[in-house]
């Protein structure tokens, strides 16, 4: 008996090998200690102004949250993200929320939807569009919501989710992002630097190819 006897099976095996080789290689995953990527790329916000990550950086740090309008998980956390972001600004940490989704996938994620959401939530920080999704790619962001917190030197000190209770804000036991923001703003080392939660996959726009 021979394995992979038929041409179809051999082709499928090659395709499987190709998948194995390419899986996970498309993203530039940031790790703790990495610098802010693509910090000079301008992104248009709901107020019509364009800002870069360098523009929004605070004296004590920068908080970047990839989010969107349609995702149920982003919605569950959006009030808490707004509260954290608004408070971070007062504490010297610049916050920006980035929507990297292709609105062709979810029209709710277009600029009009973003403007409405920002007004509804009382967002006091830039809510901007990553028009090519390249900023999200550079971060290695995969889902919404996903947070990246950088310290005053621009080094990544926290990456992950918001807290441990997406559905019920009153049941939060570990307020990871809020705690990390408080620690960075007071010059302390972040206690929990990496966390995970489920979320909606980012609907990336097609990557531009260079010839």
């Amino acid at each position, binding site marked *: 008996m021979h*394995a992979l006897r038929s041409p179809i099976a051999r082709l499928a095996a090659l395709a*499987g090998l190709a998948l194995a080789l390419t899986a996970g290689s498309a993203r530039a995953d940031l790790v703790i200690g990495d610098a802010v990527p693509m910090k000079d790329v301008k992104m248009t916000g709901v107020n019509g102004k364009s800002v870069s990550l360098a523009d929004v950086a605070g004296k004590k740090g920068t908080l970047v949250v990839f989010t969107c309008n349609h995702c149920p998980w982003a919605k569950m956390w959006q009030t808490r993200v707004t509260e954290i972001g608004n408070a971070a600004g007062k504490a010297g940490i610049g916050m920006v929320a980035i929507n990297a989704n292709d609105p062709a996938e979810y029209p709710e994620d277009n600029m009009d939807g973003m403007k409405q959401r920002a007004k509804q939530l009382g967002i006091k920080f830039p809510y901007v569009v990553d028009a090519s999704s390249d900023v999200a790619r550079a971060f290695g962001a995969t889902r919404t919501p996903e947070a990246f917190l950088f310290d005053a030197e621009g080094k990544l000190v926290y990456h992950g989710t918001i807290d441990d209770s997406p559905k019920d804000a009153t049941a939060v036991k570990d307020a990871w992002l809020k705690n990390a923001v408080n620690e960075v703003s007071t010059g302390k080392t972040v206690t929990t630097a990496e966390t*995970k939660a489920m979320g909606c996959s980012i609907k990336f726009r097609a990557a531009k190819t260079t010839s």
Partner: protein
Amino acid sequence: MPRPLDLCLRMLLPAAGIVLLAGCGHAPTHGSAAGSAAVASGDTLPLEPVTAEQVHERIREPGARATLVNVWATWCGPCREEFPALVALAERDRERGLRVLFVSADFDDQAHETRHFLAEHRAPGPWLVKTGRDQEFIDGLDRRWTGALPVTIVYDPAGKPVQFWEGGADSARFAAAVEPLLATQP
């Protein structure tokens, strides 16, 4: 040993509402590889809460040449889009030893939606639902997983992951991911 048709009839008799017949009429060659025949109504379909370790136990059960785990949710657009292709693959390659384990990441209070989605799509069982804290489940299943949905992982008969990806896929990608394992002679 009851015949497959008898089993289907036994399961159908108590079921009320929508009754799905997909999977009835032929016995799975590889026993547990095929999972349960998709016979249930949206109201009575039994969901089974599982931890990551319990998913791994299912993966390690003998009888499959390939096990494909797909974590999905009713609220996840790409999950819904790719779901029919996965159900079709599970049906097509069941007798070649493919075991497909669907694991819902829906919340407890979404059980109604979860059941009806599974029934509507004639998804083969077991009908698993993730339980416990996200991070434990995510890292327990595979540390490469960031938490983005859907996620698909293909395991060999020894329970070793040989394919892993996040995000939606089409039938060609699913087929290519399992074919090398199914085509390999035991």
